[in-house]
C-alpha cells in the first residue's frame, strides 16, 4: 500500500521521466556504430516504455474506468495497426513506412492540441502554454498532411512528379495559407470567444498548407522532405512538451528535431540545393532544358547483352557497383549480392559506391544492401570512391541516374548543376542497367548514357542482374 502511494508521487514520476530521457539519449549514442545500434534502439525503447508507465501511474488521474478503457482501446488500435505494418514492410518500402509513421506522430500532436484548446475553452490558460501548444498544432498538422502526401508519392498512389499551380500562384497561395494560420493563432492568443472554432481553422489551414508544400516537390527530393518532416514532428512534440510542462516530451522531441535538422542539411548539401529552394518545389518538372542537352551529346545509345556484360565484368580487376532507386524498385539487392559473390569467386574486386541521396531516404541503399548481407566494408561513400573510379575497369550502374549524371559537373545550364555526383564517367567502362530510356525521377536527361564507353542493358534490374550472374558463373 505504501509502495503504491510512493509510486504515485510526483517526485517518483519526475525521477522516472529523467531515467526515461536519459535512456533515450544513451540509446541514441548506440546508433553511432552498427554493432551497438541494436542495443541502442532497445535501450531507447525501454526509456519510452518507462515514460509511458510513469505517466499512467500519476496519482488519481486514471481512476475513472472509462478513461482506462479508452486508453487501452487507443493502444490496442495502435498496436494492431503498427505491429503488422512494421513486421511486414519490405525494406524497399522503408521510405513510405517512415513517412507514414512520421505522419501519425504529427497527427497525434495536432489532435492533442485540438483537445487542449477545446478543453480550456473560455478558461484561463497561461499564454505561454497557448503559444507552444499552437506551434505544436500548426507544425504537427503540416507534418501529418505533408507526410501523407510524401507517403502517397513514394507508394505511387500520387504521381511522383511535382504537382503545382502555374507560375507564382503556388507560392502566393502557400504564403496566404501561412499568414492565415499565423493570424488565426494570434487571434487565439489574444483571446476570443470562439476558441474551438479558431483552433479547428488553424488545423485545417495548416493541413492544406502541408498538402500544398509537399505536392509540388518531386520524388528525387524526397530524402530531404522526409528528413524535414521528421524534424518538424519532433519540434512539435517538444513544443507540446513545453505546453504540458513535461520534460521527457521536451527532451525526446528535441532529439528528433536535432536529428531531422542534421539529416535535412546533409541531404540538401548532397544535392547542392538549399532547403528553401526544395520546399519551394517544382524541381524535376522542367524537362524542356535537358532535352536540348541530350541533342548536343549526339544521342546514340549502345545497347548490350547480359553475356557481353558478364564477359566484361569477369575480366575486370575492379568493378564498382553504383546502386540507385531503380535497384530498390526492382528489389534487386539480393540478385546484386549474388553477382558480387560470383565475381569475387573469379577474383574480381567488387565495391559499392553509395551516393548520399541515392534512393528515397537518407541511407536507403545501405539498408537494402545490409538486407542482402553485403559486407559493411565493401560500401564506399561518395568522397571515398570518387578518386578510385579512374582505376576502375567497369562501373555497373543499377537503377541510378541523376546521382551519376555528369551534367551536374559539366553543364552549367543543367538543373542539377553543382550537385556532387559519383564520377562514374572516369572509369574505363560503364554499364547502365535501366528499364528503358525514360529519364530519371528528376526528369533530366543523362549525357552519361550517350558516352562512348557506356553501354546499356535494358530490362528489369533484378532479371538483368540474375541473367548476368548466370552468365558469369557459366564462364
Amino acid at each position: 500500500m505504501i509502495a503504491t502511494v510512493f509510486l504515485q508521487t510526483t517526485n517518483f514520476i519526475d525521477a522516472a521521466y529523467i531515467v526515461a530521457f536519459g535512456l533515450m539519449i544513451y540509446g541514441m549514442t548506440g546508433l553511432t556504430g552498427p554493432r551497438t545500434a541494436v542495443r541502442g534502439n532497445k535501450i531507447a525503447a525501454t526509456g519510452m516504455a518507462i515514460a509511458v508507465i510513469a505517466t499512467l501511474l500519476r496519482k488519481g488521474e486514471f481512476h475513472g474506468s472509462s478513461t482506462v478503457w479508452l486508453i487501452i482501446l487507443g493502444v490496442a488500435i495502435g498496436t494492431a495497426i503498427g505491429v503488422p505494418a512494421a513486421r511486414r514492410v519490405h525494406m524497399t518500402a522503408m521510405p513510405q513506412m517512415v513517412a507514414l509513421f512520421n505522419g501519425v506522430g504529427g497527427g497525434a500532436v495536432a489532435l492533442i492540441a485540438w483537445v487542449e484548446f477545446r478543453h480550456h475553452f473560455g478558461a484561463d490558460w497561461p499564454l505561454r502554454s497557448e503559444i507552444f501548444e499552437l506551434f505544436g498544432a500548426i507544425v504537427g498538422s503540416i507534418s501529418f498532411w505533408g507526410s501523407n502526401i510524401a507517403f502517397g508519392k513514394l507508394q505511387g498512389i500520387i504521381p511522383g512528379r511535382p504537382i503545382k499551380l502555374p507560375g507564382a500562384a503556388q507560392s502566393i497561395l502557400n504564403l496566404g495559407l501561412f499568414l492565415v494560420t499565423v493570424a488565426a493563432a494570434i487571434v487565439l492568443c489574444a483571446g476570443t470567444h470562439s476558441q474551438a472554432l479558431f483552433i479547428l481553422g488553424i488545423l485545417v489551414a495548416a493541413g492544406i498548407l502541408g498538402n500544398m508544400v509537399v505536392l509540388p516537390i518531386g520524388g528525387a527530393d524526397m530524402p530531404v522532405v522526409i528528413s524535414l518532416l521528421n524534424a518538424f514532428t519532433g519540434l512539435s512534440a517538444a513544443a507540446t512538451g513545453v505546453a504540458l510542462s513535461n520534460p521527457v516530451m521536451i527532451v525526446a522531441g528535441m532529439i528528433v528535431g536535432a536529428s531531422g535538422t542534421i539529416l535535412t542539411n546533409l541531404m540538401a548539401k548532397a544535392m547542392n540545393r538549399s532547403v528553401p529552394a526544395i520546399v519551394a518545389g517544382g524541381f524535376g518538372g522542367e524537362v524542356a532544358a535537358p532535352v536540348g542537352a541530350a541533342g548536343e551529346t549526339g544521342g546514340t545509345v549502345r545497347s548490350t547483352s547480359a553475356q557481353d556484360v558478364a564477359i566484361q565484368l569477369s575480366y575486370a580487376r575492379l568493378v564498382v557497383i553504383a546502386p540507385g532507386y531503380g535497384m530498390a524498385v526492382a528489389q534487386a539487392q539480393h540478385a546484386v549480392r549474388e553477382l558480387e559473390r560470383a565475381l569475387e569467386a573469379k577474383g574480381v574486386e567488387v565495391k559499392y559506391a553509395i551516393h548520399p541521396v541515392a534512393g528515397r531516404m537518407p541511407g536507403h541503399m545501405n539498408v537494402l544492401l545490409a538486407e542482402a548481407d553485403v559486407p559493411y566494408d565493401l560500401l564506399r561513400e561518395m568522397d571515398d570512391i570518387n578518386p578510385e573510379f579512374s582505376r576502375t575497369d567497369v562501373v555497373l550502374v543499377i537503377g541510378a541516374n541523376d546521382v551519376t549524371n555528369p551534367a551536374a559537373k559539366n553543364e552549367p545550364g543543367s538543373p542539377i548543376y553543382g550537385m556532387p555526383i559519383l564520377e562514374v564517367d572516369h572509369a574505363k567502362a560503364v554499364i547502365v542497367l535501366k528499364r528503358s530510356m525514360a529519364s530519371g525521377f528528376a526528369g533530366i536527361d543523362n549525357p552519361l548514357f550517350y558516352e562512348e564507353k557506356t553501354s546499356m542493358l535494358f530490362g528489369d534490374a533484378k532479371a538483368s542482374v540474375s541473367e548476368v550472374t548466370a552468365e558469369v558463373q557459366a564462364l
Partner: protein
Amino acid sequence: MDPLVIDIAVLVLAGFVGYTVISKVPNTLHTPLMSGTNAIHGIVVLGGLLLMAESSGVLEKVLLVIAVAFGTINVIGGFLVTDRMLEMFKAKDPPKAEDEEQGA
C-alpha cells in the same frame, strides 16, 4: 525560477545534446536513425494519456483515442521497424569473416 524558464532551458540543452549525439551517426545508419528518432517523437502519446483523464465529452474522447492510437503506431511501429533494420546490419559481421575465408 519560473517553470517556463526551466522548460525552455531543458529545450535548448536537449537540442544541443541531440545535435552532438546525432552528428556522430555514420551515413550507413541514416535510415535506421531516421526511423529510430521517428519512433521517439511518438512520445506525444504521453500528451494523449495525460489529457484523457481530464477530457470531457464524446468528441474529445474520440479525438484522444485516435491520438493515442496514432502515437502508439508511431512508437511501436517505429521501434520494431528500426530493430528489424538494425538486426540486418548486425547479422552481417559473422558472414563477412566467412566470405574472406572463402575468397582466400
